[in-house]
């Protein structure tokens, strides 16, 4: 949902967010609060996209992560994803949406840092409320699915050893203190809106999740037996099934961020797919060369790297740019996995930072070059200013890159600092966020949830 596009496609803006916008900072004229005519094509697509993105978490991500852990912990991972989905939904309705995507907060102008309270508990939402030319209810739910998957991504960092109460408390606080502000900065009318290019969440979703995951993993400590006696993924087949669902769902994630059933959505879908396929093959070939065999877990991890990396760029690059992004994702994320686990020695168990964090940031930075008109079929960067005669001046790649980098750094900084503080608070409440050694050995399925993943006879 890039705030401003420099072409004919409709700007995907929460129309209420524009009320307090200073017209110099946006390329599109402010939308008045008149009765917008409902476009049923856009509405139908956005409802569908919403379902696709929810499907990414339930069960896509759950299965992807579930297959990677030991069998004695599979249910706990599914539980984390499911519970976070439910929790994030309620928080979104209560305060999240309002803080992330409605104007207000600290200061009246668009350079504010957090949204307002006008939509707490969606108090001003009616069946007829519109966001552009489709219902506000759909927009809110669509955005909700993003608010669901982002904390769910962090699950990968703390599997097999975290207390369930800590998961619930952490996710609650993190959503409000990290996700909502960053979402507001980039999409809600905040300081990056209209400036940074982040079509579907390279900064908002992947950078925040990745940086927070790394911080949390570092504070939580390594799993028992790390790194010498770790167990391999208990169900690589489940990992592939999850990854496949993520791929399909990602069409909703990126193409849905066009907020319209139009050419922009179509192109976003196409480049998303190209990046996924390219990254998968590149990862597979690297692994084949380095280890002697092309693995299934490897190729599907490449897929996710490709998808995460194209996410911020999916509204700005063309097919050729997508190939470059996919290839880069496959290479960079492959080596990032080894770097974080071996060089940094942090047990980010399911490589959230290496795949989502690094991928999201990589794509966010690359779009400054690959999105430029002319470069490998780029669709154009954001508008810097609109002259009196209506001519739009677009940022140069260098300028855009600077903005992209600022966005990444700010998101990472908030993520790291806030995660650190939240973990300290949650640790104080729960008496330490890590389970006992005995429980970790027994497995969280039994210890935390009283259930057995595979009762075979």
């Amino acid at each position: 949902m890039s705030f401003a596009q420099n072409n004919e496609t409709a700007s995907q803006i929460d129309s209420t967010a524009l009320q307090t916008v200073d017209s110099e900072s946006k390329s599109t004229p402010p939308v008045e609060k008149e009765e917008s005519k409902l476009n049923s094509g856009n509405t139908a697509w956005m409802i569908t996209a919403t379902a696709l993105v929810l499907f990414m978490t339930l069960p896509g991500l759950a299965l992807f992560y579930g297959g990677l852990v030991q069998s004695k912990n599979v249910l706990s991972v599914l539980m984390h994803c499911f519970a976070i989905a439910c929790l994030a939904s309620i928080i979104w309705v209560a305060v999240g949406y309002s803080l992330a995507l409605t104007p207000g907060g600290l200061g009246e102008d668009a350079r504010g840092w957090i949204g307002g309270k006008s939509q707490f508990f969606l108090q001003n939402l009616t069946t007829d409320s519109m966001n552009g030319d489709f219902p506000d209810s759909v927009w809110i739910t669509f955005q909700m699915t993003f608010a669901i998957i982002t904390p769910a991504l962090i699950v990968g960092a703390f599997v097999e050893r975290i207390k369930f109460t800590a998961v619930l408390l952490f996710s609650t606080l993190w959503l409000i203190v990290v996700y909502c502000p960053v979402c507001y900065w980039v999409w809600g009318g905040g300081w990056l809106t209209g400036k940074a290019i982040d079509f579907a969440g390279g900064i908002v979703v992947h950078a925040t999740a990745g940086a927070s995951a790394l911080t949390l993993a570092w504070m939580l400590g390594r799993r028992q037996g790390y790194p010498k006696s770790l167990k391999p993924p208990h169900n690589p087949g489940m990992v592939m099934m999850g990854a496949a669902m993520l791929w399909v769902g990602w069409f909703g994630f990126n193409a849905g961020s066009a907020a319209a059933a139009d050419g922009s959505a179509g192109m976003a879908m196409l480049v998303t797919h190209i990046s996924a396929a390219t990254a998968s093959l590149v990862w597979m070939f690297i692994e084949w060369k380095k280890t002697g065999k092309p693995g299934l877990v490897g190729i599907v991890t490449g897929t996710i790297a490709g998808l995460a990396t194209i996410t911020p760029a999916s509204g700005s690059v063309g097919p050729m740019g997508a190939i470059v992004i996919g290839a880069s994702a496959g290479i960079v994320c492959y080596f990032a996995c080894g770097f974080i686990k071996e060089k940094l020695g942090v047990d980010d168990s399911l490589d959230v930072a290496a795949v989502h964090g690094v991928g999201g940031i990589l794509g966010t930075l690359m779009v400054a070059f690959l999105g430029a008109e002319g470069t490998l079929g780029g669709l154009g960067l954001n508008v810097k200013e609109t002259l009196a005669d209506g001519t739009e001046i677009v940022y140069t790649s260098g300028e855009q890159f600077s903005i992209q980098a600022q966005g990444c750094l700010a998101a990472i900084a908030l993520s790291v600092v806030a995660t650190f503080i939240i973990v300290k608070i949650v640790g104080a409440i729960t008496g330490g966020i890590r389970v006992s050694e005995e429980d970790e050995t027994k497995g969280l399925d039994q210890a935390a949830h009283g259930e057995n993943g595979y009762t075979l006879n």
Partner: protein
Amino acid sequence: MKLIKSIIKPFKLEDVKDALSEIGVEGMTVIEAKGFGRQKGHTEIYRGSEYTIDFLPKVIIEIVVSDDLTDKVIDAISKAAKTEKIGDGKIFVLPVEQAVRIRTGEQGDEAL
């Protein structure tokens, strides 16, 4: 009576069962096990991290036979389970004090 405990490669189970059947031994108990002797394990690599798998899947076949059948059984199992590669397994013979058929109460050789 002797308990003959054989640790063999899993894919050889059918061959051993057939060979025992040919010499008149129809019953057995099979246990799925894992282990190693001189056969080395292997390494699996996921996302750049190495996982060493020392234990290999094996199958244990337990049969109890009368003393006079012991040599024929050892011979049959050995021939059927052999691949002439490291990891073919071992056969152990233990003395059995008593045997009982639960359904009828028969004891000793009649229970076998």
